[in-house]
């Protein structure tokens, strides 16, 4: 077993601990931000585990978990927790409904894609993030080293494609950018905004540093995933582990108890 196969299991264990830590807070305080963070982190952990499993063997339902929870939904759910923390307005509940319905719809589309998965395109020699999508090769474009190509008809045209697990034009793939854009805006944008707010008011340095670590961790996994999909997958597992460490450390740091006089002077919520 190589180091690249071990790292995602370590990330999974770390995310499990992080998820339990956050959900324990939800059980005590019943604040919705903890619930969404906990669910999102559980999705992140499930995605890490699925990725680790798929580096050893193929299973279509593990792939389902990896794509739906690991690639599509987790950032949006974690970020939605941050939105609940920062914005205390009734419209956030409408966004919650959209997120839940959108997630269920993505799950439905993923279920529809399951019978069409091309498992023969699967290999354990590279991360699943590098092989999940079937891509059209533009004229003159050369396929990546080791990629399997085939010719097929798509939208009435004969095209050469690099074979992937999900079929060409799979509708579920269209949903992923929506979730990821929302997740980036709320998770990273929310952490940057919170850090800036405390920094500007010159209070609670632990929350400034904690939010910087959270934003850094989320950006790290976002960048590593993007690089992987562009064919540079060698940093993915390390990026995933460092991201989990940074976010957990950031959360612990930001959640450290503070003197009440400082907290009173800070308007966290944008209401």
């Amino acid at each position, binding site marked *: 077993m190589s180091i690249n196969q071990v790292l995602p299991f370590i990330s999974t264990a770390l995310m499990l601990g992080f998820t339990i830590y956050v959900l324990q807070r939800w059980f005590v305080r019943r604040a919705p931000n903890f619930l969404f963070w906990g669910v999102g982190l559980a999705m992140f952990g499930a995605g890490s585990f699925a990725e680790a499993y798929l580096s050893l063997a193929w299973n279509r339902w593990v792939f389902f978990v990896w794509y739906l929870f690991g690639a599509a939904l987790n950032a949006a759910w974690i970020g939605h927790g941050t939105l609940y923390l920062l914005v205390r307005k009734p419209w956030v509940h409408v966004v919650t409904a959209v997120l839940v319905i959108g997630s269920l719809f993505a799950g439905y589309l993923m279920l529809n894609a399951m019978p069409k998965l091309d498992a023969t395109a699967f290999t354990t020699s590279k991360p699943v993030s590098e092989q999940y*999508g079937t*891509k*059209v090769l*533009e004229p003159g474009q050369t396929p990546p080293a080791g990629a399997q190509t085939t010719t097929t008809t798509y939208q009435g045209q004969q095209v050469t494609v690099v074979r992937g697990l999900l079929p060409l034009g799979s509708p579920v793939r*269209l949903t992923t*950018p*929506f979730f*990821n*854009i929302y997740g*980036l*805006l709320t998770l*990273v*944008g929310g952490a*940057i905004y919170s*850090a*800036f707010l405390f*920094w500007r008011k*010159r*209070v*609670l*340095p632990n929350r*400034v*540093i904690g939010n*910087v670590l959270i*934003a*850094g961790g989320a*950006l790290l996994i*976002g*960048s590593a995933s*993007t690089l992987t*999909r*562009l064919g540079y997958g060698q940093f993915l597992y390390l990026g995933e582990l460092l991201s989990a460490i940074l976010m957990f450390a950031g959360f612990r740091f930001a959640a450290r108890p*503070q*003197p009440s*006089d*400082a907290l009173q002077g800070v308007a966290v919520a944008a209401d």
Partner: protein
Amino acid sequence: MPNSTRVTETSRITGKSMLFEKIIPALLILMGVLMTALILFAAGVLLGIIHF
């Protein structure tokens, strides 16, 4: 009084800190730029401008 002095020290950002004067602002700007780049990339994928 010793307590209140300790409270002030731990809950306020001091003015002479290199971390809070230089590094944190630079990191916030850098992360904002990176976040915008990733959002634009995802939007490009969504709009079909970037084939991916």
